[in-house]
């Protein structure tokens, strides 16, 4: 059991890192998008290994589903994007921003006090999460319905914005 989890973790980690590198290095932006989907999918696998089953499902639904579709649509709707960014004019600035991000993330990871909780986490998480979200006494019923209103505003807003032209 333990070795099985370790083996699947290392396979997933290798796939994740390799596909992330492919996203950066591939010249064809559409292939890069497909490798990004693979990267998202292996992140979902790592969530499963960590025992976060709802997070894995949400990762597959939102990132592999929605975000990937949005990225691919953005590529398909744009003209002449096949070769990626044509000029390396912003290469130096991009390097600086990337370096800054790396330094920030490294600092946060190093300086955070990572303490492990002693109590056993709930498993599977989905049903307890549903209880916390939907139950009448202690749930978040009003925020849940307000989320529906927010999504409604997103639909109508997007239609109005685009149909004006």
């Amino acid at each position, binding site marked *: 059991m333990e070795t099985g989890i370790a083996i699947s973790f290392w396979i997933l980690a290798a796939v994740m890192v390799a596909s992330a590198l492919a996203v950066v290095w591939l010249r064809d932006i559409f292939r890069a998008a497909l490798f990004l989907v693979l990267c998202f999918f292996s992140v979902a696998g790592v969530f499963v290994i960590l025992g976060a089953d709802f997070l894995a499902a949400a990762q597959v639904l939102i990132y592999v589903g929605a975000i990937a579709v949005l990225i691919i649509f953005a590529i398909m709707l744009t003209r002449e994007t096949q070769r990626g960014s044509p000029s390396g004019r912003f290469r130096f600035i991009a390097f600086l921003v990337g370096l800054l991000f790396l330094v920030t993330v490294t600092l946060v990871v190093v300086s955070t006090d990572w303490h492990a909780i002693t109590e056993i986490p709930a498993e599977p998480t989905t049903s307890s999460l*549903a209880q916390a979200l939907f139950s009448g006494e202690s749930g978040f019923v009003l925020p849940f319905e307000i989320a*529906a209103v927010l999504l409604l505003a997103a639909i109508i807003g997007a239609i109005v914005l685009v149909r004006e032209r």
Partner: protein
Amino acid sequence: MLENFGYLGVFLIAALLFALTMIMLPPLLRRFGIVPKKPNPVKSSTYECGMDTVGKSWVQFNFRYYFYALIFVIFDIQVVFLYPWAVSLGQLGLFGLVEMAVFFLILIVGFVYAWKKGVLEWK
């Protein structure tokens, strides 16, 4: 829980192996001389039994497809809420059902608006 996901992993591996076998089978069969290699121009064209393609493979898609992506994303977010709700509907009971019905009613307004505005029409 991990055991159930283990089955999922087995399915994934089987799907991968199936796809790899299907891709690798023709070259392997040719390599071992089981399949004869007799190419001709018609046979090695991209569509042996169809029309030849015109122009580049890259076309800019119509902007109308944006609405389909948008509606899909909204449905996707709905499913994220539906999934934990469906898992524990038994414990939530009637209250949970009404809750989700209200959620859907609010969102259906948006879909009806999209429908009435004709964004889903194919022109």
